[in-house]
């Protein structure tokens, strides 16, 4: 393409220009002292190429301030003024001079033009600086990230680091990283040593390199000429494959637990309204949606009135969502659903109508567009459990939240008089009425509880995906599936069904792909329901339809 070629040419020209500017600029800079201060002004240049050059020069100074500055630049927390002054933005948003730490004079600033090209260079520079960091943990992380990218240019930096490294664990990490680079060495002995080091360390990320070594091309020649090295590589590969297999299955099960906990949260409210009360509640998805919008509104409120505690909004959102959806559920029960008990077809149509009504109401108030619910900062990111398997914090939080909500529901149904009365009404309505239980009030409370639990599910969903008027539509089918599969009327069945569907889905997904995996899961459910029409956990209750 002529376009891209001329792009390269012009960027080359720009780089030269920037280099020339960089030579001139420091002499213009005011009262500059050390090389760090001299290099700083380059960051105020308008082109990404000039900023890259400046960052490289800053890294070369090996100044103690360089690492912090480059990290801030990568995070977008650096601004520069026209005069070549560079400021760091701290967490509170205040600006400090990058060289002296003095607060900013309030002059007009712009953000340096950082694109992916600059970010790549910054990433490499930061790692090299981190290798010299006094903190051994920082050095270890740097070595590991170098090993992951596996760039031959980093070999010299690693070898230099190996000679001055005193910490044991960091040394070991460097050995593995260097072993990876040694795989390309000309000396077969060195290659075997490298392979053994990789096998001993069990670094599964290097499997693809070993695989390339043992592979055979079409004409029968081996990529690796030396048979001894090949044998070593094959042995190491077997060890690593076993480890990778175990890691993969463990990861699938963890992901399955996380998927299952979302299924459970969305289905739990339905397990009460449909499972316990027998109301075919097509508006359940809209309770999820209302819960998510309650979270959104809470977040807006915090932004407007308590911006310093924004990251805590989620704790307030939980009761807000619960109470809002409970109230909506109670109103729906009182005005519509109570007149339809025992008439499943009419209930189905009426609740579907209600669901459309709720969707349109929300659309009229908040607009058809999705709204932005931000993860609180402490829910962003994740923790690496084992090599290559990262569990995001928001997913861990959802699993924990599910445990709490399930315990809460189990407690309400098993441990409170409301739960006792609710179960009595569901099992035998006329008898419960004879015992003096106000059945219609209990119905309202039970429906409100089911709706409220749906609202709690909505809070969790708002942290994972979109929040829009049609949010509930994508979950309603899955929710019914879980409740029916687990056995209508059995809470423990719902829990079991949610997790088994979640894990099954995740074990199938790597083999069959997301689309086919879902079909296989649905087929399995159909087969199970054929064999056991009551679901996995059959309910031994008589007279469910009574009343």
């Amino acid at each position: 393409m002529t376009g891209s070629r001329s792009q390269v040419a012009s960027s080359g020209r720009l780089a030269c220009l920037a280099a020339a500017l960089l030579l001139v600029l420091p002499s213009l800079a005011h009262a500059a002292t050390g090389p760090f201060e001299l290099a700083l002004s380059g960051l105020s240049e308008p082109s990404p190429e000039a900023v890259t050059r400046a960052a490289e020069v800053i890294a070369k100074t090996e100044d103690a301030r360089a690492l912090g500055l480059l990290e801030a630049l990568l995070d977008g927390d650096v601004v520069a003024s026209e005069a070549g002054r560079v400021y760091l933005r701290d967490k509170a948003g205040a600006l400090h001079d990058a060289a002296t730490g003095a607060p900013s004079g309030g002059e007009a600033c712009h953000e340096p033009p950082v694109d992916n090209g600059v970010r790549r260079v910054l990433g490499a520079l930061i790692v090299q600086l981190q290798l010299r960091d006094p903190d051994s943990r920082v050095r270890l992380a740097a070595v590991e990230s170098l090993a992951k990218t596996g760039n031959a240019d980093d070999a010299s930096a690693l070898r230099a680091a190996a000679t001055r490294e005193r910490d044991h664990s960091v040394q070991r990490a460097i050995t593995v990283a260097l072993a990876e680079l040694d795989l390309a060495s000309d000396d077969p002995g060195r290659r075997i040593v490298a392979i053994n080091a990789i096998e001993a360390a069990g670094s599964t990320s290097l499997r693809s390199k070993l695989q390339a070594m043992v592979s055979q091309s079409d004409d029968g020649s081996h990529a690796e000429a030396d048979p001894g090295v090949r044998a070593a590589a094959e042995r190491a590969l077997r060890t690593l494959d076993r480890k990778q297999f175990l890691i993969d299955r463990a990861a699938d099960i963890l992901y399955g637990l996380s998927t299952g906990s979302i299924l459970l949260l969305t289905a739990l409210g339905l397990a009460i309204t449909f499972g316990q009360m027998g109301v075919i509640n097509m508006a359940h998805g809209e309770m999820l949606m209302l819960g998510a919008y309650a979270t959104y509104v809470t977040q807006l409120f915090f932004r407007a009135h308590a911006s310093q505690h924004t990251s805590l909004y989620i704790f307030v959102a939980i009761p807000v969502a619960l109470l809002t959806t409970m109230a909506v559920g109670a109103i729906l029960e009182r005005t519509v659903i109570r007149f339809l008990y025992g008439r499943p077809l009419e209930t189905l149509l009426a609740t579907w109508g209600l669901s459309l009504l709720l969707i349109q109401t929300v659309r009229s108030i908040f607009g058809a567009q999705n709204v932005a619910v931000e993860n609180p900062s402490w829910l962003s990111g994740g923790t690496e459990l084992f090599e290559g398997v990262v569990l995001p914090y928001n997913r861990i939080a959802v699993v924990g939240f599910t445990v709490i909500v399930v315990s809460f529901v189990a407690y309400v149904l098993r441990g409170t008089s409301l739960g006792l009365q609710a179960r009595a009404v569901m099992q035998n309505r006329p008898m419960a009425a004879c015992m003096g239980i106000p059945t219609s009030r209990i119905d309202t409370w039970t429906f409100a509880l089911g709706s409220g639990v749906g609202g709690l599910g909505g809070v969790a969903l708002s942290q994972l995906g979109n929040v829009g008027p049609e949010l509930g539509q994508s979950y309603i089918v899955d929710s019914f599936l879980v409740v029916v599969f687990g056995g209508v009327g059995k809470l423990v069945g719902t829990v079991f069904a949610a997790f088994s569907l979640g894990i099954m889905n995740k074990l199938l997904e790597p083999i069959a792909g997301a689309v086919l995996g879902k079909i296989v899961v649905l087929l399995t459910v159909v087969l199970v329901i054929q064999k056991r029409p009551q679901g996995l956990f059959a309910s031994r209750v008589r007279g469910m339809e009574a009343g």
Partner: protein
Amino acid sequence: MRSWVVVLVACGQMASLGCDKEEAKPTEGAMAAASAAASSSAKAESKPPEESNTGPIKVGILHSLSGTMAISETSLKDVALMTIEEINAKGGVLGRKLEPVVVDPASNWPLFAEKARELLQKDKVSVVFGCWTSVSRKSVLPVFEELNGLLFYPVQYEGEESSYDVFYTGAAPNQQAIPAVEYLMSEKGGGAKRFVLLGTDYVYPRTTNKILRYFLHSKGVVDADIQEEYTPFGHSDYQTIVANVKKFASGKRTAVISTINGDSNVPFYKELGNQGLKAQDVPVVAFSVGEEELRGIDTKPLVGHLAAWNYFMSIDTPENKEFIAEWRSYVKAHNLTDGDKRVTNDPMEATYIGIHMWAQAVLQAGTTDVNAVRQAAGYQVFRSPSGFDISLDAKNHHLHKPVFIGEVQANGQFKVVWKTEGPIRAQAWSPFIPESAKKVADWTYPWVCGNCTEPKYASPVSVASAAKH
């Protein structure tokens, strides 16, 4: 449960439309029956009737204003009305005002066909601007071909189509997907050697990825370095897929090419961010994420990822400033929802260009007669908001468009990191797919065909050269 009903209805509609085609023109009754809405006024006409030359010119707008696609399509309706208002303020076309006829096909594909028929037969519009998804376009196509209508389609699509009755003002794959992949392979784009083709499971991602796979093969990328995955509509659980991308990316420089449809994008980018895949390590280039889609979401996890379009709101040209100002004042004057939060995007620009080109063609033809306007539409040139003189190709009915690649910024706008020097010509049939490479889209003499391997009319030149051999 509901989707089954929709599928059944869709099947029924398809069957009835299919009948129309097979039984051809004589049975007008069957056709009219197929479209209940238009049956009252449906007469045995095969082309729009001659209009009086004095009244307003009716212009159809066929965009979903309710249902799932309303989020995207409502803006296109708004910008179409704005453009019509602009043309009317300058006195209209041929001294006649334009009168928009807005209908709502409600994100329901068979209803698109019904509404198109209603616009052409009952309202007797001179032209229709509309459709977003490829499946809605495929749904109305037989109607426009049967009734000799004129459709301007403003959205980037998968190509492999050229209709006599449609002008495509969005990008074909070689005006969006292919340049984006070339950029990812270039030094500046990160020099990707491995590619993950990730999409929602429907016709546009499948066809685009098919073209991209052939293209990557032609660039020497082997199948082992291409991973292709699809997710259902509305998919929100990207744990396994992101973990796979991560594993796949550990060997070589990897880039993700995403044709994931609207709503699934947020969970996908969130999962990417949370699992620690950064834009500088594994860039994701998206073909369906624009300013309008970024408006409703938390952009933090997306910063640095890429999108390829023919227009960005952030493009700094006088024409674009004027376009945005006009849009802002229109939104304000008509008190549209979300007010000053409304943005401009690529399909809106394509709609704007399309309407202007049609108006120019009507001026040139001196009439709104569809056949005359179609002939005049080719080679129309219009200075677009992106700052280029865009021309409409008379042969394949597509626009020549410039390509921009932008990085997502925290404010929901894009920063252009790469662009073509000028507009490039669309390839309706991808030269990378062997069976498509032979096909030619050329509506000028002697070809007069959208998907032929040889001209409809033997040209004197080719007859002469054939005689020589």
